[in-house]
């Protein structure tokens, strides 16, 4: 174990991107101040490398955090708290446990990769782009590390703006529609979440007679809200998270956002942003409102399964590569919500694992689509074909990640799906069987895609591109290589993630189970196997 002493490592991680962003912002004026003439193109390069360096530092710090993290200890570590708005007892309070650590690592890694992946494709307004990305990283890290609900909300919204700009400025032709849809959709949910947060804080302060600690996650978890408030607050939070995840039928912003976003934007969107929702459900919805969670679990489960099957079926007929992957995300993220709400270890740990795996795999798939889009300026499946002959490395990677996405054992995608399905079969018996049909549809749409773009003859459209259709270049390979390695590594050694998250998730489940036990009747008798096993 590494002793980080009095180093406020979490704040360091959170604010390194901000420092980087400010640095990039001020670099131009500074250079002008010291009278150094830099060619605009060189200046763009400076921005690129500056952002990369920042992301690298953040990644390195998060690795350091992982090294210093004690996976045996319960509770939050490296907690740092300071008063922010004392009037309402609002704090700047951050802390890390296994769940957030895993997601922080995912975030810093994917941001690093995304920034690298933007080197080629982003040619205009590089500075603004890089700053947006770093601010985005700040927001995402903040969400994962915040231990004060107000702070959590603030970071939650901070995420929104840079993503809005990234899609809106560097996106495709229909980007404005997509980005506004994204923002409005997300805002509707998050604003109601704010209502719920405030209502909880008020209730807390009323009961305890003081605002101190009213927004403190740790205090609120222990508070025990009355069922009515739980129900409404649960719904407030749930709406925000369900939109972000996104759960059926609140998913339609996602295909549009993905389709229009630049490659790196899609990567981050799929890789991290969607996870904010899953993280929120685990971190907030279950521990804060265990009664409501128990009551509403059937609803969430129904929506999740609907989303899993629905997303997969819709993906089958998508004509656009990115849309296809977007719908696959809807389907895959359905696993996450399903896993969370079956309330057993396999399900919940599987959900977290699935979040990580989906982040890596879908991120890689978007990178690959980006590779092909860079060369063809097209993503229409019907215009592709025979890429296997022309760009074999690309094709290999595409097949690799498609199979990973389809849940091939030995790769990361399988473990999460398996655990979630196991959890849901355990909790729901034959309904879990129905949910598992998703894996069939997943194979259908992925293989259709592979067959259509990789196999067969080279289409006239691609032939027309001639030598412009080059294989994966060095930078692209550098972005994809870590994802390949991690996909395999996590597929073979899922304990890398599961060991970190098991302890905190057990605590969450204990809270939910306690609430369920205090409720009158359970439907355990309907299951053909002993309840203790799941």
């Amino acid at each position, binding site marked *: 174990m590494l002793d980080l002493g009095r180093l406020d490592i979490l704040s360091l991680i959170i604010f390194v991107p901000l420092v980087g962003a400010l640095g990039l912002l001020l670099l131009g004026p500074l250079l002008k101040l010291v009278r150094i003439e830099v060619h605009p193109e060189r200046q763009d390069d400076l921005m690129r490398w500056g952002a990369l360096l920042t992301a690298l530092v953040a990644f390195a710090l998060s690795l350091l955090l992982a090294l210093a993290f004690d996976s045996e200890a319960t509770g939050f570590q490296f907690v740092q708290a300071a008063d922010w708005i004392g009037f309402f007892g609002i704090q700047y309070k951050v802390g890390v446990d296994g769940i957030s650590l895993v997601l922080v690592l995912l975030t810093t890694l994917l941001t690093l990769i995304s920034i690298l992946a933007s080197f080629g494709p982003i040619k205009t307004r590089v500075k603004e782009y890089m700053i947006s990305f770093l601010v985005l990283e700040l927001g995402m890290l903040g969400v994962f590390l915040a231990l004060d609900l107000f702070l959590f909300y603030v970071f939650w919204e901070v995420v929104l703006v840079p993503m809005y700009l990234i899609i809106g400025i560097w996106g495709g032709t229909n980007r404005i529609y997509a980005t506004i849809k994204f923002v409005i959709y997300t805002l509707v949910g998050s604003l109601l979440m704010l209502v719920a947060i405030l209502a909880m804080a008020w209730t807390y302060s009323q009961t305890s007679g003081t605002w101190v600690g009213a927004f403190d996650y740790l205090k609120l978890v222990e508070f025990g809200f009355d069922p009515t408030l739980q129900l409404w607050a649960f719904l407030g939070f749930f709406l925000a998270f369900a939109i972000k995840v996104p759960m059926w039928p609140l998913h339609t912003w996602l295909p549009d956002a993905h389709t229009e976003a630049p490659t790196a934007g899609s990567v981050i969107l799929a890789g991290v942003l969607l996870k904010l929702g899953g993280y929120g459900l685990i971190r907030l919805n279950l521990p804060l409102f265990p009664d409501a969670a128990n009551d509403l679990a059937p609803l969430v489960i129904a929506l999740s399964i609907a989303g899993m099957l629905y997303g997969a*079926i819709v993906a089958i007929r998508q004509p656009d590569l990115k849309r296809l992957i977007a719908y696959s995300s809807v389907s895959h993220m359905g696993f996450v919500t399903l896993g969370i709400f079956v309330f057993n270890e396999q399900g919940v740990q599987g959900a977290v694992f699935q979040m990580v795996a989906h982040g890596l795999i879908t991120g890689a798939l978007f990178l690959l689509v980006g590779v092909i889009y860079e060369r063809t300026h097209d993503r229409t499946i019907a215009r592709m074909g025979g890429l296997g002959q022309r760009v074999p490395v690309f094709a290999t990677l595409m097949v690799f990640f498609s199979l990973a996405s389809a849940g091939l054992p030995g790769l990361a995608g399988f473990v999460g799906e398996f655990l979630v399905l*196991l959890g849901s079969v355990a909790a729901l018996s034959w309904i879990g069987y129905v949910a*598992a049909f998703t894996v069939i549809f997943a194979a*259908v749409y992925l293989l259709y895609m592979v067959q259509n773009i990789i196999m067969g003859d080279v289409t006239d459209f691609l032939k027309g591109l001639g030598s412009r259709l080059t294989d994966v270049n060095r930078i692209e390979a550098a972005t994809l290589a870590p994802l390949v390695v991690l996909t395999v590594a996590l597929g073979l050694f899922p304990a890398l993630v599961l060991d970190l998250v098991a302890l905190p998730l057990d605590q969450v489940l204990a809270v939910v189970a306690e609430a369920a036990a205090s409720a009158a009747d359970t439907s355990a008798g309907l299951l053909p196997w002993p309840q203790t096993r799941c």
Partner: protein
Amino acid sequence: MSPILSAEEGGELFIPPQVAGELESLLVLLVLGLPLAGFLLTGLVGRRLSRPWIISVAAIVAATLIATYLAFQALGGTYGEHGIKHIYYTWIAVGDLRVEFGYVLDNLSALMLIVVTWIGALVHVYSIGYMAHDPGKWRFFAYLNLFMFSMLLLVLASSYLVVFAAWELVGLSSYLLIGFWYTKRAPALASKKAFLVNRVADHSFLVGIMAIFLLTGTMDFFESFIEWNVAEVDPLIRNAVAVLLFAGAAGKSAQFPFHVWLPDAMEGPTPVSALIHAATMVNAGVYFIARTTPIFASAPEALLAVAVMGTFTAVLAATIALTQKDIKRVLAYSTLSQLGYMFVALGVGAWLAAIFHLMAHGFTKGLLFLGSGSVIHAVHEEQDMTRMGALWRKIPWTHATFLIGALSLAGIPLFAGFFSKDTILDEAFVLGWWPVYLIGVLVAGLTGFYMFRLMGLTFYGKSRVDPAVEPKIHESPATMVGPLVALAIPTIFLGLVIGLPLGDSTIKHWLEPVFHPGEVILGITFPEYEFIGLNGGLIVISVALAALGIGVAIWLFGVFNTRARLETVDSLARRDRVTRALYTASLNKWYFDDLYHVLFFRLGGLVASGVMWFDVHVIDGVVNGVGTLTQRAGVEVRHIQTGRVQNYALDIAVGLVVVAAVFILLAR
């Protein structure tokens, strides 16, 4: 809801494997690791090698030698009756769930090891010649190695989930190899079909595995066997779980209703057909059920389903094989039919026979497929038997070995196939499944017929080869003929070596410890074997029917230089409506492909389109509708703003009146 066995009985019946020594574990790791390394190395650098096959073949040969050593050790009793087991590491551990990556080496896996490694090695060698001119052969060998790794993992794994992983990996290799010539449409489609059909089956399989875990609390085979039989489980659940597992097995082994992928899989290179789609992978289902007999044994209704499906597949495939023109398709349907036999054996409780047939059929069918590859090679990639004929003189080695294979498959005594097939039929009858026996015997006759129809059309009669190709026909190179000869040896001698004495054979001794608990649970006892008596009589009947089938085939299609009566076939088929209909139906595979096409491709496509329409127009329609409606409302609201002061003033006055009225009403 009562348990099958008491805990005590369970403890006595199931004896756990011994703990493996370090050497064995290392060797097993090598057996698994060499092909995997071969795959990775060939995949990464194979393209740049002048002999891309070198790493891969070397890896397999080495693995084969080690595996053979291990297998002989096991069969020789070094590891005791129940084999050895070792856990390398825990793959997944969540809550009670512990999925351990380890192996079990007992007699069953030892036999499977031999089949898999030897056929695998021979196919590798064969492929050196067969794929010599293909520019992508590095890829081919890499995939083959991947397959070998996966298949070996499958037969060695000690945990359900690891078997499932291997199950998927062999599926993957199969997918890659069927689609090896992916630029062509047919292989691309066939590979996808194979993968998807398997996925459907695997879905049930996976849920079945989950149910096993949930009911027994373990993912380990041997632990689960005890727990399963001592736990209180509703019989309905037992059968349901067993059926789920069977569905998985049926998918991989292409049993009805999952049989459609296998014939299409012949789009892959012929060595692949030999290795994967005849000799090894398709046997995975049989192996799995054999491995889990203690599970199935306590689910008799599920076993009945296995038997029924096996029987049906055997008949169905055999009838289709009768009329096919593509040499590989005939063999493919024949494979289906023979796999049906194996499932029949599994279903009736003749598990030993199933494994015996698995081995015999594996070598035989491997030989036949490789032989067909040699034929196809000779006639320049022609697969249609109506464009062959009279080849026996030109490719004598191929012909000779092929003939051995055909005889073995047809069940002619002393060949391997005879022993195994008759064991199945015999035990089915003995165990009281006489309808199954009758159908089995009938299928044996059909087998004789279609195999010798194939022989006749391919090797005998008049040559119908393209005149341009005719002069260029030549025997295949040594790397191809060598494996044929090598495979002919077990095809001839396997039965004689391990199938004798009848009723008390070596293989029975080997497998007895594996199947004993299941037989006890199921309550099977075999009566004394009577060669001169019932058992011998059964042999006579089946051999006679097979001979009859062969005779008819020879009469119609000729042998060596005899004249073929091909026209008779046509006239027979055309004689009346019924036969014509049957002939066409057989030729069209009983229309299952068309049915599935309509059902899943067309209808499924329609459903998918429908859901997509729903997504765009209803769900997103509502979302956009809300947006549009809001905008629209905005426009309406703005219309109130007329720009005229009087309108504003009037509204204020009206507002005042209303507010005043409300206040006054509230005050009352």
